[in-house]
């Protein structure tokens, strides 16, 4: 049983890789990855800076599939994000056309998180609420 437990630990250590394997379902793959990291550390990987408290709503995004991603437009909190991608509290980084998600890197965060259109992020608690909820 000890051997199988060891193999199980090894198999479960591959869980982060599996987070990306099946794309977006209820959560996006990067949200699952963040949860996996948090689970390993028994707590959040990073803290939100106090000045960014509030809610970040991903209203939507638009891109033309034949054009480059720089032509895409992202709306956050009812405002169009400028071409630089910079908004108050972070950066809208990239659109994933396959998963239909937008990568957003919040100030202080080590990496970007992908969100589906309509999702809201409660910044102080790092909670995600879907569009229909």
């Amino acid at each position, binding site marked *: 049983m000890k051997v199988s437990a060891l193999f*199980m630990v090894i198999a479960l250590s591959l869980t982060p890789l599996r987070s990306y394997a099946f794309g977006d379902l209820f959560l996006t793959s990067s949200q699952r990855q963040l949860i996996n990291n948090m689970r390993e550390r028994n707590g959040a990987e990073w803290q939100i800076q106090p000045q960014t408290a509030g809610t970040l709503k991903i209203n939507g995004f638009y891109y033309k599939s034949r054009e480059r991603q720089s032509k895409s437009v992202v709306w956050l909190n009812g405002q169009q994000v400028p071409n630089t991608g910079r908004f108050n509290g972070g950066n809208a980084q990239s659109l994933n056309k396959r998963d239909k998600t937008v990568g957003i890197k919040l100030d202080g965060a080590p990496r970007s998180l992908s969100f589906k259109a309509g999702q809201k992020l409660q910044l102080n608690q790092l909670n995600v609420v879907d569009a229909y909820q």
Partner: protein
Amino acid sequence: MSIQQMLTEFKVRIIQLLLVTVFAGLILTGAFLYAGDIDKQKADALHQQSQINSDIDRLIEDDNIVRSMSASFLQLKSKGFYAQEDRLAWTEVLKQLSEQLKLPNFKYSISPQKIISNIGSGFQSDLGLAESLMEIEADLLHEGDFVSITEQLSVFAPAVFNVSECHIEKEKLIVLKQIKRNIGLRCTLAWYTVKPLPIQEGEL
């Protein structure tokens, strides 16, 4: 030489010729009959050869089937499918999974084992196939945990199972920085084992 003597010699020659002809005819007839028999023997031999070839092909095919089935059987046996069910091992795996995944809540229950007699056409009813239903109720951090649970069960727990029914419910609020229930899971897993039949006398 008189004419009488010449006629007599002619008759003798004619008789000799007739005898030679008859003899040659007999030899030819015998030769044809023998050749005919040889052809028949050759045809029989060829027929036998083709039968042996088809038998060899069939045996090779049977051998391949037996080899592939024995590999499948050994795999099933190694997974504990062909053995008494090992509930303790299942619960051990589930317990370890719950701890590794740090699930806020994880409950399971296993119903008594039932023998399935109505397996389907082409199968013996006394095969000894048994089914045990396992109910799982868990609070997951994300949907990937469900995949981890089924994968780990499939790899480490003995016997063969399938997911009979599942109910997955997403919480309204997804918490990313605390270990909290984000997805609710309620599943029924059906575990299958085949009880080895006792060997009857004279079966070996």
